[in-house]
C-alpha cells in the first residue's frame, strides 16, 4: 500500500498529515509560504492551509524561534523552518536559554512544543554556511530532543511524532539525501511507527558495529556492503538526544567493535559522547577503542574541497579497518 516518496516529499506529506490532524499545528519560517521553502519541503501547504497557518516570517531567526515560543505558550504547535544549518546561530539564545529551559523553569507549568526543522550537512556544492552539521550544539543542551532521519519512512513518521511531542524537538533533515526515494505506507497508523527515540539496526552483522545517522547512514550501508571480509552491523541512531544506548550497547557487546561516522567535526561531535559512554558500558567487550570517522576540526571548507572534508565511503572503510587492526 506504499507511496513512492523522496525524503523531502515524505516530510512534506508528514507536515500535511500533522496539520490536518491538529488545527493548532503551524508552519513558519523564511520563504515557507508561497515558495514552499528553498527545498520545497513546505510546498503546497500555504495554498491549502492559508497564510495564518503557514507563515512567511521576517528575515530574523531569533524572531522566528522567539515568536514560535510565544505561540506555543498560547497553545499552538509551531513547526519552524531554519532555512539552512548555518543560519541557526542567530536563534541560539532563544533556543538554548528559552526553548530548552521553559518547561523545567516553570516546573512543568509551561509547555513549548516547538519543532525546529533544519536542513543540515554538506555535499551539495554550496557556498559557506550552507553545509554545517551543528548537531552537537543541540545534543549538549538539556531540554531539547534531537532527531534526524535517513529514509522516507522515518521522514514521514518522525516529523509527525516530533510535532506530537510536548518537548521541543530539533528535527535535522539530511539535505543531500532529500531526493532519496522509497515506498512509504502512509495509510499505516502513527501508533505503529517505530518510536522517535529508538535506534534501528539498519543491517545486521556480527564482526563490528558501524553507527551512523542522517546523511551518513547510506554511506555506512555502502561501506558494510563493500567490506566483504567482515560482517558489519549498521545502526541508524535516529535520535541523537536521548540516544538509545540499550540498542547500541547490545550491538557492541555482540560485535566487540564500534565505528561511529558523522559529518560533524570530530572534536566534541556526537561521536565523542557515544564513544565515551559505550566504552564505559562495554569496557570488557571492546576489542578495539571506538573509532570515529568524522569531518576535520576546521571550518567547513569551500565546496571544491568538501569531498575531502566529509567522511566518504573510503574514509568509513578506513575507520573499519582501523577497528580491526587493533
Amino acid at each position, binding site marked *: 500500500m506504499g507511496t513512492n516518496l523522496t525524503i523531502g516529499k515524505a516530510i512534506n506529506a508528514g507536515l500535511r498529515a500533522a496539520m490536518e490532524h491538529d488545527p493548532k499545528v503551524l508552519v513558519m519560517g523564511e520563504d515557507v509560504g508561497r515558495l514552499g521553502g528553498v527545498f520545497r519541503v513546505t510546498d503546497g501547504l500555504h495554498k491549502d492551509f492559508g497564510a495564518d497557518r503557514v507563515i512567511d516570517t521576517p528575515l530574523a531567526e531569533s524572531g522566528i524561534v522567539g515568536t514560535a515560543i510565544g505561540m506555543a505558550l*498560547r497553545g499552538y504547535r509551531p513547526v519552524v523552518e531554519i532555512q539552512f544549518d548555518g543560519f541557526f546561530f542567530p536563534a541560539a539564545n532563544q533556543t538554548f536559554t528559552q526553548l530548552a529551559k521553559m518547561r523545567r*523553569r516553570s516546573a512543568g507549568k509551561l509547555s513549548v512544543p516547538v519543532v525546529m526543522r533544519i536542513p543540515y550537512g554538506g555535499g551539495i556544492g554550496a557556498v559557506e554556511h550552507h553545509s554545517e552539521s551543528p548537531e552537537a550544539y543541540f545534543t549538549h543542551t538539556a531540554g531539547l530532543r534531537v532527531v534526524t532521519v535517513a529514509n522516507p519512512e522515518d521522514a514521514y513518521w518522525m516529523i509527525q511524532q516530533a510535532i506530537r511531542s510536548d518537548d521541543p524537538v530539533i528535527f535535522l533533515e539530511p539535505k543531500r539525501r532529500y531526493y532519496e526515494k522509497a515506498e512509504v505506507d502512509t495509510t499505516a497508523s502513527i501508533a505503529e511507527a517505530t518510536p522517535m527515540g529508538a535506534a534501528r539496526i539498519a543491517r545486521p552483522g556480527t564482526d563490528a558495529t558501524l553507527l551512523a545517522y542522517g546523511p551518513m547512514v547510506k554511506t555506512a550501508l555502502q561501506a558494510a556492503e563493500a567490506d566483504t571480509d567482515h560482517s558489519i552491523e549498521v545502526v541508524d541512531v535516529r535520535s541523537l538526544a536521548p540516544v538509545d544506548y540499550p540498542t547500541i550497547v547490545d550491538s557492541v557487546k555482540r560485535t566487540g567493535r564500534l565505528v561511529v561516522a558523522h559529518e560533524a567535526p570530530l572534536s566534541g561531535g556526537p561521536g565523542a559522547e557515544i564513544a565515551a559512554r559505550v566504552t564505559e558500558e562495554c569496557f570488557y567487550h571492546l576489542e578495539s577503542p571506538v573509532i570515529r570517522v568524522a569531518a576535520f576540526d576546521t571550518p567547513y571548507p569551500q565546496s571544491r574541497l568538501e569531498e575531502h572534508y566529509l567522511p566518504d565511503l573510503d574514509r568509513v572503510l578506513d575507520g573499519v579497518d582501523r577497528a580491526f587492526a587493533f
Partner: protein
Amino acid sequence: MSDTTAHAEPELVQLLTPEGEFTAHPDYPLDVGADEIRDLYRDLVLVRRVDSEAVSLQRQGELGLWASLLGQEAAQIGSGRALRDGDMAFPSYREHGVAWCRGIEPKELLGMFRGVTNGGWDPHEHGFHLYTIVIGSQALHATGYAMGVQRDGAVGEDGTAVIAYFGDGATSQGDTNEAFNFASVNNAPVVFFCQNNQWAISEPLERQARVPIYRRASGFGFPGVRVDGNDVLACLAVTRAALANAREGNGPTLIEAFTYRMGAHTTNDDPTRYRATAELEEWKAKDPILRLRRHLEREGLADEEFFASVDAEADAIGERVRAECRALPDPEPLDIFHEVYAEPNVHIDQQRSEFAEYLASFEDAGVEGGR
C-alpha cells in the same frame, strides 16, 4: 538631523504634577473614581513595602539577590492595573508591581530570588509569564503570543491584549527590535512597555540610545508614546489606551515610561561607583507615591485614617512576607531532574536513579551527602 538632546526634555504625557495637581490630557481621558485612586495608592505603598522587605531579607541572607523596583511603582501599578483578566503580561525581572496586580503572591517572587524555584507561579492562571532574565527575550514571546491571540480570533472590544515589559537597556538588544518588527508586520495585539529608569546597571541612557526611546516605534511603523512613569494615573491612562488599540486590531504601541531607578540595580550593586547622589535627590522630589498622596490630600479624597490603615496593612504584609520567605521549603535534590522533558526520557531517568542511589549511599553510611 534628529534631535540629540531630547533625553532631558521629554514630550511626556502627564496627568499629575509632582505636586499632585491633576490636568486632563486631550488624548488620554481618564475615568477613575476616588475608590480606584485610593486603591492605586494602596497598591503603590504595599508593593514598595514588599520590595523593601525583600531588600532587607537579602541583607539578612534569606535571598540570594533582589532587584528592587524602588521608584518604578507608578509605572508598574499604572500599567498593571490597566490589564484585564484575560490579558497576558510578559515581565522582565523587576516587575514586582505588575506581579502584584496579577495576583502573584510575594513569596513566589521571593522564592525565585531565594533560589528555591525559577519562578513558581502558573503563568496561565495569572496571565503573567515567568520572569525573564535574558534581556529582551520576552519581547518576542509576547509578540508570538499575540500572534496566537490573532489566530484565535480574540480581537475586538472583548479581545485579549498582550503586554511586554523591559527596560531602557533592553532596547539595545536585537531581540527587542526584532519583536518590534514582527509585531508591526503582523499588526499583533501587543503593547511594549519600556520602563526607562535611565540606567542599565551602571550605564546611563546615553550609552543605549541617542534619542528618546518611544521614537523607536515610528521607525518600525507603529506609534510610540512617552509617559511620566512616576505618574500612576498617566501610566494607567496611556496603557489602557494602548491595550484598547491592540485589542481592537490596531496593532502594537511602544510606551516609554520615563522614570528613575531610585535604588541599586540589584542588591549586589553599588551605584555610588557610577552615579551622583544629586540625581537621586532630584528624583526623590518626583516620587510616585508622594505625588499620589499629595493628590489625594489636595483633592480631599482620603484622610489620615486612610493613610494610617494603608500603613498598617503594609506593616502586616511586611511581617507576612518575612515569615513566608523564611518558611519557604528547600527543593528536594532529585527535583533537579523534574520536568526537564515532558515525554519519558530514559537518559534522565537513569541519571536520576543513579543519583538517588548515590545519595542513599551516604544515608546508609550515616553521613551527609553533598559538600
